[in-house]
């Protein structure tokens, strides 16, 4: 199992190196925008941004829009871009590998379940690595801008720049909503995406995951999983019913069902090229 995982980490990284570089470029761009917007807002006001304000800008999610005001919706391009890039990195490796080099690996591993579990672990590690890049780059941006590590959000910046409706100063909540929920929800959506890709096609897995993410930016409803990844859609910052504890349960259920369905399916499926003429 360890050898399989080592193979997936090495080959998954090799297969995705260009996409990871693109992801880093997107993150640099996102942080440059965050820096300029926050600095421009604070200029001449005497407001000093804190480190968490930068994290709120990058990870906090798009503006909450009540259902009767959907006409004011603006596409959160950069926030969506991060999600799209993660889905793009996850999207193709497992299935492409299965129909190429991975077939040698599968036969040598002598177990379909081990192969699937190794891909799941690769998926989780990849998403965690992408978020490590997000955290690191946002921290660097905050550090360069001289942001204070004050452990709370600056209300003016979060409402004025990050588009939060209001601000919570409950530290425990803040850390959970800003640092833990985006990662957990991303992991569960990525596993769902990989399972859908396995059963159908990678492009369908990509469309499913990104539909959930995109619709979540418009509709603040419990059913759309990505809402739990956004501090801006949380009950603690707007008039919604999105609570992180529900998101944790929902995310884990999606994760477990996806892993289970994927393993049952993969244990019985014929391994043939998808476009194979019979």
């Amino acid at each position: 199992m360890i050898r399989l995982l080592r193979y997936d980490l090495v080959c998954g990284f090799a297969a995705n190196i260009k996409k990871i570089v693109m992801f880093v470029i997107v993150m640099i761009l996102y942080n440059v925008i965050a820096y300029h917007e926050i600095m421009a807002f604070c200029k001449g006001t005497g407001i000093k941004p804190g480190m968490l304000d930068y994290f709120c800008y990058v990870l906090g999610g798009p503006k909450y829009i009540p259902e009767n005001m959907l006409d004011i919706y603006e596409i959160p391009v950069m926030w969506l871009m991060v999600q799209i890039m993660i889905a793009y990195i996850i999207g193709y490796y497992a299935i492409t590998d299965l129909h190429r080099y991975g077939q040698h690996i599968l036969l040598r591993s002598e177990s379909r379940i081990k192969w699937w579990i190794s891909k799941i672990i690769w998926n989780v590690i990849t998403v965690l690595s992408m978020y490590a890049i997000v955290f690191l780059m946002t921290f660097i941006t905050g550090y360069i801008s001289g942001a204070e590590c004050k452990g709370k959000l600056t209300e003016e910046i979060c409402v004025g720049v990050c588009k939060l409706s209001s601000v919570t100063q409950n530290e425990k909540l803040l850390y959970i909503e800003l640092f833990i929920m985006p990662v957990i929800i991303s992991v569960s959506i990525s596993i769902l995406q990989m399972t859908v890709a396995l059963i159908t096609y990678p492009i369908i897995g990509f469309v499913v995951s990104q539909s959930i993410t995109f619709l979540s930016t418009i509709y603040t409803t419990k059913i759309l999983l990505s809402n739990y990844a956004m501090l801006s859609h949380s009950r603690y910052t707007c008039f919604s019913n999105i609570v992180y504890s529900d998101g944790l349960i929902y995310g884990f259920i999606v994760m477990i069902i996806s892993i289970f369905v994927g393993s049952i399916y993969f244990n019985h499926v014929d391994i043939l090229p998808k476009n194979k003429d019979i």
Partner: protein
Amino acid sequence: MYIELKNISKTIKGTKVLDNINYVFNSGKVYGIQGKNGCGKTMLMRVISGLIRPTEGTVNINGSILWKDMTFPSSIGTLIENPAFIDSYTGFKNLKMLASIKGNIGDEEIRTALTRVGLDSDDNRKYRKYSLGMKQKLGIACAFMEYPDIVILDEPINAIDKDGVILVREILNDLKKRDKIVIIACHDAEEMKILADEIIQMERGKVL
């Protein structure tokens, strides 16, 4: 060592691609499967490899039933359809990565396998720079380098030059001497007569 195919049938999307196949493969022999395109050669190889599940029938490998007692044959090397490797790795590095999964051979055995198919184990060219023939040779080396009990080669001499074909013959003879079961498919009827001890003729999913 034996492989017994009992009443093997496979239907995909309403088409019967394998139709009631019964056959016994014994160790120490090279079996050649012959037939027109789409007659079911590759499908049969995939069934024996455990990559596809027969709709009916059983594959019995030395007393263990595939899909019941095991997911894949415990000792098998395959080259089915086009060889696929990691583009950015050299041939040696590709094989080393694969060998590390089971961990039963070292660098020396990998180098020997590469030399035996006519590839230079110190060649620093990446797989993407390989010619078709070199890719095919690497695929063959990958299938036999660990000397598995079952070796399946689909069109092994495709794109290989005359010298390469002689090397393939030598490898198959060696596998036979080592008491392995070798199953090959080949379009070239004359070459098949040289390579195989027993020829299995297939047509429309049936063994004739």
